[in-house]
């Protein structure tokens, strides 16, 4: 089980209706893209960090670990943006441009705010409940059921893969690059037939219980959708939007 998923079940907001958490994270995602990056993005990042660590009770270390990988990618992408490349008379020129730096800084801030919002959603809402929301729409029903099956299989297969990898490593399967390629290829080639075999076994088991193509499941025990909570979330988003829009434009950076 991925550590994210363990938190998604075991946090203080775990039993709340997924639509409430989706409204908060989705609204903040939208705001992080539309508000002026300075100071709006910082405001959003702060609010979402408080929501995750303070309200949902996610450990700060787990939250930071979730942010670490995307933050690295964001900084690398922003570094490429800060540099300007243009065709000149004697070939291409590379320079550090002030506009480029401004765009890079605001994009990095925006992206960081969005990552904070998305991490809140991932750490507080189990995947099964989030995808389960989409099942009610008939057009999305099939895709949602396939997504739930993918989620089930990826957890099962991750366990198989770890066991196979340990077996390979304990036989020096990754001692040299050449050996590592062979081992990785064997890993993938052994995993595919096992994955297909699992699907067949599941199919036989379901067929024995009258499987016609539908996969009904019981909803998990959780509180019903609270309109008071939704109203509170909407109010919070309006306050953040108003603050971000008022304070924006007076900041140090253009945009």
């Amino acid at each position, binding site marked *: 089980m991925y550590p994210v998923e363990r938190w998604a079940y075991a946090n203080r907001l775990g039993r709340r209706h997924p639509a409430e958490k989706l409204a908060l994270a989705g609204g903040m995602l939208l705001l992080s893209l539309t508000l002026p990056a300075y100071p709006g993005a910082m405001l959003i990042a702060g609010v979402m960090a408080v929501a995750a660590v303070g309200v949902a009770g996610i450990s700060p270390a787990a939250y930071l670990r979730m942010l670490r990988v995307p933050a690295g990618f964001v900084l690398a992408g922003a570094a490429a943006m800060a540099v*300007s490349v243009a065709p000149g008379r004697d070939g291409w020129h590379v320079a550090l441009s002030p506009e480029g730096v401004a765009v890079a800084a605001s994009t990095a801030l925006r992206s960081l705010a969005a990552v904070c919002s998305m991490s809140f959603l991932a750490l507080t809402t189990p995947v099964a409940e989030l995808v389960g929301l989409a099942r009610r729409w008939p057009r999305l029903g099939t895709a949602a059921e396939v997504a739930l099956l993918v989620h089930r299989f990826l957890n099962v297969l991750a366990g198989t893969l770890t066991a196979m990898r340990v077996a390979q490593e304990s036989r020096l399967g990754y001692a040299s690059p050449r050996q590592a390629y062979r081992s990785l290829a064997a890993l993938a080639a*052994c995993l595919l037939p096992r994955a297909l075999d699992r699907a067949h076994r599941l199919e036989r088991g379901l067929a024995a219980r009258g499987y016609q193509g539908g996969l009904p499941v019981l909803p998990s025990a959780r509180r019903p959708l609270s309109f008071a909570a939704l109203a509170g979330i909407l109010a919070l988003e309006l306050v953040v939007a108003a603050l971000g829009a008022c304070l924006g434009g007076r900041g140090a950076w253009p945009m």
Partner: protein
Amino acid sequence: MHIMEGFLPVSHAVGWSLAAAPFVAHSAGAIRRQMRERPGSKLLMGASGGFCFVLSALKLPSVTGSCSHPTGTGLGAVLFGPPAMTLIGSIVLLFQALLLAHGGLTTLGANVFSMAIAGPWVAFAAYRLARRAGASPAVAIFLAAALGDLATYVTTSVQLALAFPDPAGGFEGAVVKFMTVFALTQVPLAVSEGLLSVLVMNALAAHNRPELQELGVFPKEGVAG
């Protein structure tokens, strides 16, 4: 190459989602028809998606010594076909965003376009053309995986360049800039992913011919591949 959460402006995020939507809808429709004939194919799709997700999380030793993740688009397109790969890839990208924080929800449309549409179709076309031109299966798989990988990063470069044109060099300057960043890191990876895909297919063809026939990679009657 994933575009991170919140990296694209709203108009671009919406635009790429709209561009990807017809492909995903076509893929979902094809799969729904297939499921009506054979209910078990839904489970097969689930297993294939799980397989793609788990493989994409593997670390691949690169020629330059660094490590990165295979995109798996080439192998997936040859094994499952591009229409199925579009829906499977979109679901895998959603879970990569939620479980691994790779990519994002706002950039899902752009990432689906580069990794679940452009990559698989280019890989599949390369595989078919190479086979028709008389290339051996190994060469065809290598070309499919390497070109599929390259197609995803060219698409990503264009997506980033459209969103962030260079202040001095404009769109072309930005394309050159992002392409050089990715070319340095991704070309060795495309080659290593091509090699790995050949090894995987060799092992599958040697030991798991019935499974490959079930997926439709090889014809049903035992023809030497």
